[in-house]
């Protein structure tokens, strides 16, 4: 059990800046994120797209913003728990017990939900029959590529994951690549490579096709694909891989007894606390009259939520407002003279 002042759910810009504010006022926190990297939507959805509305930063990319925020919280040495998702929140006396997917447990008076639009999950095939094989022969990520050796593998998608794996697995497996249109969004060099492999009949390439059905008794035998015109083809397949990017889902958050308004959590605008004491929501996931889904709003919300956390983390102390320019205590925390 890890004891801390605050658990932050979500390592996007809002969560990171809230961590900074907690560090400034002398609180500890632990940050959990479902992705395998830090940065949230900034990193997952638009790492290279320029952002123009961060105050005093005329232009930066999602990746630059993330790196700068990380630099800013470095002095506090907070722990990140990546590739992990908060599953359960239970109240115990004045604390929350936070349990994650991987079995980690935290004890904390405060939880700050900075979860964006939820956690990122792979988009799955819409065909019902694919569910039966989900996790065994219908896969959305690859952990161990050796299982594909000498097997027939049908890969769906047109992005880098689909292309890279098609190229990689064509060395050890019989690969079919199926994509819904003629153009690919993957790197031009990979697209070129795919076309060469297709010409040499090393890869079976089907463009303007999508999945129709997967079939098999017990184990997967074949996959049926259809063209835009509706014509079907049957391909032999031991494995079917889908790479359609990630979608955002609220996931377990809906089970924590929080008020929900559509996909957002209503909060008060004084400290961004939800209807549950000690649970705060900031960034895209929170809502209140006038809410703007801007990163800068998330920063403001995080700063106020941090002060809200102070009350429960240090019930016997009075919070003192201080400026970073003037306070020696803050300078000590930042490790600057």
């Amino acid at each position, binding site marked *: 059990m890890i004891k801390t002042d605050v658990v932050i759910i979500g390592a996007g810009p809002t969560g990171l800046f809230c961590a900074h504010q907690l560090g400034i006022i002398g609180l500890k926190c632990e940050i959990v994120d479902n992705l395998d990297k830090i940065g949230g*939507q900034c990193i997952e*959805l*638009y790492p290279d*797209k320029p952002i123009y509305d961060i105050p005093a930063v005329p232009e930066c990319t999602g990746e630059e913003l993330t790196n700068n925020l990380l630099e800013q919280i470095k002095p506090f040495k907070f722990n990140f728990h990546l590739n992990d998702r908060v599953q359960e929140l239970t109240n115990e006396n004045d604390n929350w017990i936070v349990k994650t997917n991987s079995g980690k447990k935290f004890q904390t008076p405060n939880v700050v939900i900075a979860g964006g*639009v939820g956690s990122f999950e792979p*988009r799955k095939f*819409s065909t019902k029959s694919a569910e039966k094989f989900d996790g065994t022969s219908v896969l959305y990520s690859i952990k161990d590529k050796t299982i594909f050796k000498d097997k027939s593998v049908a890969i769906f*998608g*047109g*992005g880098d994951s689909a292309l890279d794996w098609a190229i990689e697995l064509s060395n050890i497996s019989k690969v079919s690549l199926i*994509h*819904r*249109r003629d*153009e690919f*969004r993957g790197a031009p060099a990979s697209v070129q490579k795919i076309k060469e492999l297709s010409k040499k009949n090393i890869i079976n390439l089907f463009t303007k096709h999508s999945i129709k059905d997967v079939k098999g008794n017990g184990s997967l035998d074949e996959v049926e694909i259809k063209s*835009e015109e509706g014509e079907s083809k049957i391909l032999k397949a031991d494995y079917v891989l889908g790479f*359609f*990017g*990630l*979608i*955002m*889902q609220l996931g377990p958050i809906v089970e924590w007894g929080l008020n929900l308004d559509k*996909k957002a959590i209503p909060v008060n605008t004084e400290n961004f606390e939800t209807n549950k004491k000690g649970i705060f929501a900031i960034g*895209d996931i929170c809502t209140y009259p006038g809410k703007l*889904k801007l990163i800068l709003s998330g920063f403001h919300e995080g700063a106020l939520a941090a002060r809200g956390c102070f009350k429960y983390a240090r019930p016997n102390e009075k919070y003192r407002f201080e400026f970073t320019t003037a306070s020696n205590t803050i300078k000590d925390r930042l490790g600057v003279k």
Partner: protein
Amino acid sequence: MAKIKYIEYNGKEHVVEVQNGLTVMEGAVQNDIPGIDADCGGSMSCATCHVYVKEGWYDKLPKKEMGEDDMLDQAYEPNSKSRLSCQIMVSDDLDGLSVYMPEKQV
């Protein structure tokens, strides 16, 4: 101003007047029409405002910009009439447009 018809997957129709300069996505969200999620808020970064444009209308719309098809690859059941509604800007020319919602967005 354009009258736009949003048709839910179950067939339920919503006709609303949408101001010029808004997107078809915003027209749905501002009028609480279900079926369009728009998780990313219109930055072409997700694919949860996906619609099928009615036959006959698809070719009349301004063409897709770079990147829209890439996002549509990640939509639920895209087809040749698929668009992201956040990328369709409303103008007088769109008066009478009909769009169909997919079965679901995620």
